[in-house]
């Protein structure tokens, strides 16, 4: 019986990471209908932020505060990922509202760029990038104003950005000759975040042995859930967000700044991805490919839970998390060893992480046959299901 509790607890911990990861996605997808394939990469940014914060606290004046670095990392990761998401919304997604399939492809492109960015980012790279962006932004102001009226103004714009990019690349490769500047910050290898001592122990509850890190993740998830619920239901901006979700044009007429609402929603959703990234670092080493491991699971959670309902997200994520862990660890066999041979074989067949995913996803697809709109579908009558 202890073993059963142990399995359930571990499944719950895995599931709560999934809740945290899918929560941001549910906010963005459920409220705005935007498919953000770069969500996993925003998680990765959160994880790397944790790594940087940890390194800051490891040596130097802040060394004494090392046990508390994770508490600093959480808001900082929220901020970094949130701002990255905001930038994404302002530059790309804004142009693509109402075209979900295009958004999907564009954000996938962004995710590729972010992945390669953390692999190859170095001081020289950053300097080159900043100079290129600055040049591209400043160039139109330096050119004679009358030129912007000419027929070839669009060509000029493209050319000036290309030139700025070339200057940036030249600068970056020039500075790459300097050893210090050429050193990649993270490189393609996985990074390991050392959890503070108080997160490395475990709490013994007689029957069950609970690692503190996992308890922390569960607590963090619960906190995030409460915060998001409060934000959406009680705060002024949350109410505005829900109003825009329900009827965009009417909200606009009533004076709600819909563009700000969009940006804010995206910021919150992306920030939550950053917090999820912090949680992931506590489970093991993370790398540039972190996002790819989570993104499909997160979307399955959102689809299974039903769009626009936080409760659905929570139930679906916990369900998928617990089920995959229980099946993948094969612990059903340990709990009930005396099983018929056929069933025994079946469970062993699926008792790896990847095979468990095969079974769980197949179950989700079967479930969607009966409830196409997910666990908690939105009420209403529409032609477009």
């Amino acid at each position, binding site marked *: 019986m202890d073993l059963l509790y142990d399995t359930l607890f571990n499944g719950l911990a895995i599931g709560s990471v999934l809740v945290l990861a899918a929560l941001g996605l549910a906010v963005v997808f459920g409220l705005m209908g935007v498919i953000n394939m770069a969500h996993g990469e925003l998680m990765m940014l959160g994880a790397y932020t944790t790594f940087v914060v940890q390194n800051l606290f490891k040596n130097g004046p802040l060394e004494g505060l090392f046990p508390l670095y994770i508490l600093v990392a959480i808001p900082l990761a929220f901020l970094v990922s949130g701002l990255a998401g905001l930038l994404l919304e302002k530059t790309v997604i804004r142009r693509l509202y109402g075209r979900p399939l295009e958004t999907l492809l564009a954000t996938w492109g962004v995710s*590729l760029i972010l992945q390669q960015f953390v692999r190859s980012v170095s001081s020289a790279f950053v300097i080159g990038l900043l100079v290129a962006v600055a040049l591209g932004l400043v160039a139109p102001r330096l050119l004679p104003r009358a030129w912007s009226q000419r027929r*070839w103004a669009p060509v000029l714009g493209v050319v000036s950005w290309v030139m700025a990019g070339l200057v940036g690349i030249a600068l970056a490769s020039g500075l790459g000759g300097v050893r210090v500047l050429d050193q990649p910050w993270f490189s393609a290898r996985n990074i390991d975040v050392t959890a503070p001592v108080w997160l490395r122990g475990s709490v013994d509850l007689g029957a069950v042995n609970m690692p503190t890190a996992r308890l922390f993740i569960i607590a963090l998830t619960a906190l995030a859930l409460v915060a998001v619920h409060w934000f959406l239901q009680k705060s002024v901006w949350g109410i505005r967000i829900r109003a825009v979700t329900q009827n965009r044009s009417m909200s606009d007429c009533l004076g709600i700044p819909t563009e700000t609402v969009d940006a804010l929603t995206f910021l919150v959703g992306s920030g939550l991805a950053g917090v999820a990234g912090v949680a992931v670092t506590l489970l093991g080493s993370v790398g540039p490919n972190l996002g790819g491991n989570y993104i499909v699971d997160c979307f399955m959670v959102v*689809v299974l839970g039903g769009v626009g309902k936080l409760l659905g997200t929570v139930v679906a994520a916990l369900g998928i998390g617990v089920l995959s862990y229980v099946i993948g660890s094969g612990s059903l066999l340990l709990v009930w060893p005396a099983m018929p041979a056929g069933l025994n074989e079946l469970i062993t067949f699926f008792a790896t992480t990847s*095979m468990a995913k095969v079974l769980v996803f197949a179950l989700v697809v079967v479930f*969607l046959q009966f409830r*196409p709109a997910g666990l908690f579908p939105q009420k209403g009558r529409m032609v477009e299901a």
Partner: protein
Amino acid sequence: MAKWRTWLPWLLLVAAGLILPAILPPFRLNLLGRFLSLGIVALGIDLIWGFTGMLSLGQGIFFALGGYAVGMHLQLLALPPGELPEFFGLYGVKALPAFWQPFHSPLFTALCIWVLPALVAGVLGYLVFRNRIKGVYFSILTQAALLVFFNFFNGQQKLINGTNGLKTDTARIFGELVGSDSMQRNLFWLTLVLVVAAWALCRWLTRGRFGDALIAIRDDEPRLRFTGYNPTAYKTLVFAIAGAMAGVSGALYTVQSGIVSPQYMAVPFSIEMVIWVAVGGRGTLIGAVLGAVLINYAKSLVSEQLPETWLFIQGGLFLLVVTALPDGLVGWWRQGGPRQIQAMVGWPPLAPTYPGLDLDPAVQAEREALGSTPGGAP
């Protein structure tokens, strides 16, 4: 003139088929053959995405199924009778798994390459379309299905050699090694013929009533349904056809690259397939093939020189195509893109106004006699 125009592409194609094998080194020819075979899966995606509006992120499933069918057949072909493929020994498998048995037969394999993916696509599509799941939900579900297949093939060492995949180089077809240069040249020709056949099939499908129905599904599915059509049947059928094309493409790709592995079902690869179509021009058949060949050639060139920049370029392409070139290169060309550029940098073309005043020779002559400029100002 018109006759010349219809014949010219075919002449060029035949010329390419005859000349390229002579002038390209075997390695480059093999690459071109591979990319052309990817053009077939791109055509399938164009059919379901460009014409029917369903963005599938799971074409890798069908691609890899076709590849595995041919891979299994060639594994068995390379063996003396009664023996097992080598990798089975590593996992202690003594008897050939039952589902391998029919792949001894070349005929069964040739059927399996396209029938099996079509069946899987048909069943999967029917289950999804029946519930009117569409749009992004369809995309997500196909991606999840892809992950399911990937994990399954990746994890089953004892059945299909798991993550290592199946090699096809060492088998002999008609006494010729599959990996040899002359065999690869034959495969190039086969690919070329099949690409043209696939293109013709797609063209035949998209012209006429069936094609109209597909476009109607893309543009307004409820209205089509209310008109008395059953979109589910059309969507299932076209998804199965795209699956079959992906299977053929995967088989051709496998024999030309010498291996089939679960990496063909990796999530990024299937999304890449979509971007070939997007860059070439969705809704234009030739664009799909062109996009597949161009992007892959660019990829192989860039990866040879600066491997770490390819992801940046690819990501940038995604962004550029979606925001600036929604109809792809071919669509841009057909909608007068070059003329727009020409108009921007000078020499704006004469606007043919109704009733064609600018182009009427009599008006032109009169204008020249008067000595006025086309804009009307003296």
